[in-house]
């Protein structure tokens, strides 16, 4: 009895494991297939940024970066084509084009002179060689003046990051720990600003910054408002501060620390993960910011951030696909790199604002 029961169990176990393995393999393969399609444009961007301009617009060209070979004969360059002959396909350079018959030269034996070939040369495929145009990257970098765009973007991102994190942390502490009149009302108003379309405040802000303060073409209309905190950051930091036990602050206050001292010396060191997440969010926001730089910096190309610079570049050099994609790849490397390094804090931060936990 026990024997047969034990045997049955192992059989059941084997079947269960086999089924699990099959399920595991199919789910994983399915996910990989979706991932391949989802990330395909990224691969396209990188591969195409390494092609020559001629190849990017040629539908018949191979997927990988390649270059059509040519051969120099008597001081001039001629394309090498794949020519079918009685002795199989030969790689010959096309010297004299004709509709019915053309003349070729064999690059391996130029001394042999011109070779007559019957047929339409237009139907012949060029000979291609794997050739990566690394050169596109420095060319894109210089054409777009990426160093200046990068400096503008980084300056904006860091200055506003420091300002918004400090003021958001103060406000978050106020909402987390103190009772004051209309606290709940103000808190509701703060969350309300998240669903407020920025357009509704934009026109008077624009008129005021441009006409009254004469800040047109400078970064001030973007930097100054960021110094007063932001609802997302305040909310996220408040949620974090609420999880810090009050005992630590009470102990500090018994030791004679004031409110500000308690905040700086007790709360902030406890909240490093949340402060990091908020700093990263702001950094990515600034890196992506487009609409406000577009309207406030209009007329001052020197001050452009990466986003606006890329857009102008796309308008001016729209036929230079390989350069535009190289610039796009350069622009996506820093945020992707930071994300891969700091993903844990970052993901935790996103989850806090949107999940009931």
């Amino acid at each position, binding site marked *: 009895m026990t024997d047969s029961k034990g045997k049955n169990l192992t059989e059941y176990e084997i079947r269960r494991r086999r089924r699990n393995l099959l399920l595991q393999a199919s*789910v*994983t393969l399915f996910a990989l297939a979706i991932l391949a399609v989802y*990330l395909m*444009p*990224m691969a*396209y*961007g990188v591969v195409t940024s390494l092609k020559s301009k001629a190849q990017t*617009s040629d539908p018949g060209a191979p*997927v990988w970066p390649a270059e059509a070979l040519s051969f120099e004969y008597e001081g001039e360059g001629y394309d090498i084509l794949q020519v079918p002959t009685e002795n199989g396909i030969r790689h010959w350079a096309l010297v004299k084009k004709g509709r019915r018959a053309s003349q070729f030269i064999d690059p391996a034996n130029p001394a042999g002179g011109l070779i007559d070939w019957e047929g339409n040369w237009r139907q012949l495929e060029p000979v291609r060689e794997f050739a990566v145009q690394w050169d596109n990257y420095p060319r894109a970098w210089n054409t777009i003046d990426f160093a200046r765009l990068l400096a503008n973007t980084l300056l904006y991102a860091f200055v506003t990051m420091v300002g918004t994190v400090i*003021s*958001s942390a*103060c*406000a978050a502490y*106020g*909402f987390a720990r*103190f009772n*004051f*009149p*209309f606290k*709940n*009302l*103000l*808190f*509701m108003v703060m*969350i309300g*600003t998240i*669903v407020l*379309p*920025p*357009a*509704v*405040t*934009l*026109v*008077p*802000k*624009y*008129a*005021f910054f*441009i*006409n009254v303060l004469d800040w047109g073409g400078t970064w001030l209309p973007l930097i100054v*408002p960021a110094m*007063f905190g932001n609802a997302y950051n305040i909310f996220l930091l408040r949620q974090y501060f609420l999880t810090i036990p009050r005992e630590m602050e009470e102990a500090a206050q018994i030791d004679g620390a004031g*409110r500000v001292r308690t905040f700086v010396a007790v709360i902030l060191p406890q909240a490093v993960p949340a402060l990091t997440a908020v700093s990263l969010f702001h950094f*990515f926001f600034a890196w*992506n910011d*487009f609409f406000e730089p577009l*309207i406030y910096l209009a007329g001052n190309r020197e001050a452009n951030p990466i986003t606006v610079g890329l*857009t102008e570049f796309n308008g001016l050099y729209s036929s230079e696909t390989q350069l*535009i994609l190289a610039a796009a790849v350069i*622009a*996506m490397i820093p*945020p992707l790199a930071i*994300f*891969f390094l700091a993903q844990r804090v970052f993901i935790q931060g*996103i989850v806090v*604002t*949107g*999940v*009931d936990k």
Partner: protein
Amino acid sequence: MDMFTEFGAARGQARWSIRAALRLAGAQREEAKWGLLFIGPWLIGFALFYLAPMIVSFLFSLYDFTLTAPDDAVFVGIDNWRRMLADDPKTWETLFVTFKFALISLPIGMVSAFLLAVLLNSQHLMGRNIMRTLFYAPTMVPLIAAILIWSRVLNPQTGWLNQMIQVTGIQAVGMDGLRWLDDPSLIYIAYTFIGLWGIGNAILINLASLQGVPTELYEAASIDGAGWLRQLWSVTVPMVTPVIFYNLVLSTVGLLQYFIVPYVLNDGNGYPEGSTNFYMIYFYKQAFPFQNMGYGATLAWFMFIIGLAITIFLFWSGRFWVYYAGESRS
């Protein structure tokens, strides 16, 4: 608790009495002073960059006012509003375009985020952490870079999307193929693809919510004979409705301001056949290139009213379909 739940909690506890606020004494007064000091920076910023501009924006809407000649501003009463609502066909055309696109892109985006989260939460998926990171990666690509890449991937001749579709046997490449960015009947799908590169946050909060569903629920459903699909629909979906609601509100408000993709791709000129004349593009043109501050402010205020109406409607409807665990549904 998530942002909107906290909003509801604050609404439940809000005190509206000014007299009570002034009656504070002693320690309470001291605490209130410090609280206000700490939120001070935000409060000043709110007054200067939200409250005041909103009021002034409304006042602007009552004037005919251009920045090039600010001294010639004329009070016109409700003329701007009448023009916008009755005389200017562009208002409704651009709103229609915006809603049409939202109705296509919103469901696709939200369902994709939910299903990808289910996939990434699967016990059977190998390498879950690396998969999650990779599925999130496109969200980190700056939107402008993403648009530039997608505009070439969607090229009818040389783009990889059509070449991939061609492999399956469908005629996609070439002039008679799928002209994603030139065909008014495909353009919203093309824009939705670009949008799918930004659903990482929605995937993440869906995922976090899925991880919070108690396993007992699945066990109970399984004992009752519910299959995978039935469990997904009857257990998983109701448990993640708060997250779906949160994503729905933020995406709707975001789509009302849809601007960057059509602006970068074709300068906001509506190509092809006016199908990309979004409301925000129209507002931008009136307010900035034309410097039409009065009419621009009117369009902006109307956008605010529409956004507010939709948000209130969504919050009201949420009572019927958003399920908060631990709360009784009455």
